[in-house]
């Protein structure tokens, strides 16, 4: 994809180190952290409420299907729109590139003699850097969306697609308004009073900017000042949320009402519209409208939705000698038509720009939008930066995804955002060559014997520094930024080394289901005990545990690092090893491995020689997570457990009285790839409640910050996510934390160890095996 904005003045590309420094700076911004925290919590609650009683996934699927069909025929839809709109007197343009769109709009301004421009919020205008071009062409422009106006006054870009000034406090806004009121006429500070204007009736004079305490007063200042701009403008520029091909009509959603004034008052209206906003009919636009405001701001609908077709009667003419207003629709391609033909990423064009992927992103919550996108923000921002602004600008950004899939889960159009981010990483590393570290990692991990030999050596190498379960004696200088959690030691005996003995203990194998264990690296080499506990639980209900020795890493780490080939090679190795073992179920106690094998192998291995589509489908179907295996296949019930005693180690600051009946209060952390990746939420909680008192806590589903290789790349982010989670848990009164992912155990147990709080953290398998009735 051409990097279309490279000609203009650009901010310097950040090196990985500079990017991390900018993240650290954002992490230190306490106002931002507090604001985004509050937003994340409120958004979640409000969104749940606004979708209650609605078939949310059904609405999303409807939008996805409609958009997919539209993406198939964008050029036809454009042609249909053009023909109908032109017939109705609108002028329709198609700009291949951002530069072309900018030139088209400047030409429209020149032809109509426009000097003063008002804009209503448009991310597409940000995409083509229209503001820079307007200034260069000596056109005064004023943003009229309140948030956009504020950031225009500050000379910044938006930090959120829907709430562009969310990073600013009321005091900062008051300061900008005071400056604007004092400034001489001009695009950034037209005086509040026009020629002949009376003073405000209530204010009794020109704007006296409030001190910032009262947001209502600040909004009044904006209303007063911007109204003058509306009245004086010759040209209004908007975006559009829909372009309805059948009717040659556009639809615009706003809450403030600025788009209504922008489209009505000036004699010239220009709507800049991405080709992806084309929908066949009004019915299709309504499908989007049902979910867009709900997902964006948890509103049932935006206050205003304006639908415009033809040239509605106007008292203002669009050009000299014409009695009529003029309305131009400038469609922007800028890579969209190419993207529509990209089989792996075309669903990106389903995006309706609701911004929800930022609202739920734990990384966004920590550092805000200016570090989470070039123009577009959030998960979609990382992706669109690559497609619209080129790989150089996307390189650092696409790494800053923890892979928690919260975005994919909330997306209004069901886009596999996290999968596409992985795909982009792979494309970047394929075209640029991989960084040495990830290349080495890919090489090692796709070669099982080499990988396992290296792990064996690591076990011996750690001896001088390992004490018990943790690596303790590394000088801090060696840990650098990674010292926020205690690192686990590699186990003395890996699971694969112990397996012959464990297998031999099953002296009378039952006829129950053949359950193949996928150990994954963490269980095999760091936490084999968790897997031993699982074997106990499987056998107690008559299951037959199998362990194919040729299995290796699931391949997710390689994929996260953009090493596609390595990921494919390990996937194939595992597919063959497990297939040979003839299993009924393939279980992994690591949901990331299970998610990778169930949801990503079918794509990774599609078309691999010797792998039939049927075999692949059957393989994926039989991959199961641990808690579903226990509840639905092995049929565990409460009577199978003797409730666990309160843990001995729960002394110190977190020790609390146990819950009802003396059961320990157990909090749960829901691993990202279990809750969202595999969609499993009920079974682990049900199992905890069988063996203890389940204590729900806030943000159970929010990522712990481990994210596999993410925590190595961005330790400060990983640490901040972890600290937040542990603070909530420690304050909750829980006596024990159970989760069902070894990565989460590593992160949270290591963090607790470091914090010295001793909230015991264990894998669900350990917790349950300990509570199993002796008779089983």
């Amino acid at each position, binding site marked *: 994809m051409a990097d279309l904005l490279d000609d203009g003045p650009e901010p310097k590309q950040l090196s990985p180190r500079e990017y991390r420094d900018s993240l650290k700076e954002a992490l230190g911004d306490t106002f931002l952290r507090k604001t985004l925290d509050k937003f994340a919590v409120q958004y979640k609650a409000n969104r749940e409420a606004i979708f209650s009683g609605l078939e949310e996934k059904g609405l999303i699927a409807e939008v996805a299907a409609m958009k997919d069909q539209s993406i198939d025929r964008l050029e036809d839809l454009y042609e249909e729109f053009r023909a109908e709109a032109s017939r109705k007197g609108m002028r329709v343009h198609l700009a291949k590139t951002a530069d072309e769109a900018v030139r088209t709009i400047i030409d429209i301004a020149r032809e109509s003699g426009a000097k003063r421009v008002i804009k209503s919020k448009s991310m597409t205008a940000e995409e083509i850097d229209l503001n820079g071009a307007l200034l260069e062409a000596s056109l005064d422009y004023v943003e009229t969306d309140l948030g956009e106006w504020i950031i225009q006054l500050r000379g910044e870009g938006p930090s959120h697609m829907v709430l562009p000034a969310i990073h600013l406090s*009321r005091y900062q806004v008051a300061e900008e308004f005071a400056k604007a009121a004092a400034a001489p006429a001009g695009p950034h500070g037209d005086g509040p009073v026009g020629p002949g204007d*009376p003073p405000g009736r209530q204010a009794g004079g020109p704007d006296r900017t409030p001190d910032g305490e009262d*947001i209502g007063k*600040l909004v009044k200042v904006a209303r007063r000042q911007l109204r003058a701009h*509306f009245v004086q403008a010759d040209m209004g520029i908007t975006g559009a949320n829909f372009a309805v091909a059948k009717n040659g009509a556009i639809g615009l959603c706003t809450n403030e009402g600025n788009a209504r004034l922008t489209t009505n008052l000036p004699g010239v209206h220009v709507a800049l519209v991405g080709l992806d906003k084309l929908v066949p009919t009004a019915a299709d636009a309504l499908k989007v409208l049902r979910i867009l405001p709900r997902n964006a701001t948890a509103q*049932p609908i935006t206050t205003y939705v*304006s639908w415009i077709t033809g*040239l509605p009667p106007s008292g203002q003419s669009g050009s000299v000698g014409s009695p009529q207003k003029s309305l131009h629709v400038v469609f922007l391609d800028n890579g969209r038509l190419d993207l529509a033909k990209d089989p792996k990423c075309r669903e990106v064009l389903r995006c309706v720009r609701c911004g929800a992927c930022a609202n739920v992103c734990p990384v966004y919550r920590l550092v805000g939008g200016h570090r989470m996108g070039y123009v577009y923000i959030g998960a979609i921002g990382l992706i669109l930066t690559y497609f619209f602004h080129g790989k150089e600008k996307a390189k650092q950004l696409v790494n800053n995804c923890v892979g928690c899939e919260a975005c994919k889960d909330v997306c209004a159009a069901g886009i596999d955002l996290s999968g596409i981010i992985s795909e982009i990483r792979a494309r970047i590393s394929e075209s640029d060559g991989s960084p040495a570290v990830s290349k080495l990692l890919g090489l090692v991990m796709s070669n099982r014997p080499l990988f396992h030999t290296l792990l064996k050596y690591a076990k011996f190498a750690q001896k001088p520094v390992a004490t018990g379960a943790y690596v303790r004696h590394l000088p801090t200088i060696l840990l650098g930024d990674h010292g926020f959690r205690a690192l686990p030691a590699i186990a003395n005996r890996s699971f694969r080394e112990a397996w012959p003995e464990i297998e031999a203990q099953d002296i009378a194998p039952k006829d129950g289901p053949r359950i193949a264990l996928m150990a994954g690296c963490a269980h095999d080499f760091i936490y084999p005990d968790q897997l031993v506990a699982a074997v106990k639980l499987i056998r107690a209900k008559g299951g037959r545990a199998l362990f194919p020795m040729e299995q290796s890493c699931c391949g997710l780490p390689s994929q996260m690092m953009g090493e596609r080939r390595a990921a494919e090679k390990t996937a194939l190795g595992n597919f063959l090893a497990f297939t040979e073992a003839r299993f009924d179920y393939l279980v992994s106690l690591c949901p990331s491995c299970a998610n990778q094998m169930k949801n990503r192998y079918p794509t990774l291995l599609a078309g691999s020689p010797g792998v039939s589509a049927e075999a692949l489908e059957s393989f994926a179907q039989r991959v199961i997570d641990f808690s579903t295996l226990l509840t639905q296949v092995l049929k565990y019930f409460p009577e199978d457990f003797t409730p666990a005693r309160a843990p001995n180690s729960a002394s110190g600051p977190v020790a609390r009285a146990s819950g009802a009946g003396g059961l320990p209060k157990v909090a749960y952390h829901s691993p990202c790839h279990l809750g969202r990746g595999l969609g499993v939420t009920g079974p682990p909680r049900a199992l905890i409640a069988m063996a203890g008192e389940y204590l729900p806590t806030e943000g159970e589903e929010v990522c712990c910050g481990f994210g596999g290789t993410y925590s190595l790349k961005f330790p400060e982010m990983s640490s901040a996510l972890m600290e937040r989670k542990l603070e909530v848990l420690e304050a909750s009164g829980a006596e024990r934390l159970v989760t069902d992912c070894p990565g989460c155990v590593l992160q949270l147990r290591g963090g607790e160890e470091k914090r010295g709080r001793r909230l015991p953290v264990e894998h669900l398998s350990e917790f349950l095996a300990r509570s199993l009735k002796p008779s089983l």
Partner: protein
Amino acid sequence: MPQKPGAYGAQGLGPCGLNLCPNGEAMASDANQTSEANLEAVALFKKKAAEVSTLVIEVPDLSAALDQAARIAAQADPAERLPTGSPQTAREIAGSPKRLAAPDLSEADYAYLAGRCQELGVEILKGPMRERLSGLEAAFSLASLGLADTATCVMENETEDCRLASMVCETHVLGLYAKDVVQDGQAGLAFLEAALDRERNFVSFISGASRTSDIERVLTLGVHGPLRLVVALIGPSGD
């Protein structure tokens, strides 16, 4: 005297008195909508309106709705004269009466409303609104359709004056016939499709007062559009 409730719809006249209605038969799908479904929709509309700070007042007929509009204008706080380049002087403003814009009423309805305004000392105007882009206490318009599940009023086919009045006034009073309230956007689809089929049209879905959360995400009403939305629900409402 004002026309009877439902007169616009039944005659296929646009709410602004123009014969521009997309569907010559009726504005809403009242032919297809059973009275029971309509009652349910109206009840839902009222419930949802409260959630978006829309004040719903129930009136028996259009004249009662116009009475309310005149009263609201008379009782409103004085509207701010925003800087618009209009050549008024401070003295003119200080001494001026409250204003109510009602650009697209039929002559008979306008005459009725003018009488009410005169009694209450309110200045009534039809336009041109481009000369009155601020300092307007209230505006009255008629909606074509109500979408209950989002408490949305649909306005279409207004003249520019009708559109502008609904944007620049401080309190917008929207008359909505109870019989024109349908369940949701889906039920209003035929209306929207027909409206967009026209040679020119500006259709507005309006659900509450102008609002923003752009400063510290604090919800504030009245940014660029009206500070308040009052829906005068005309006719039997099922109570």
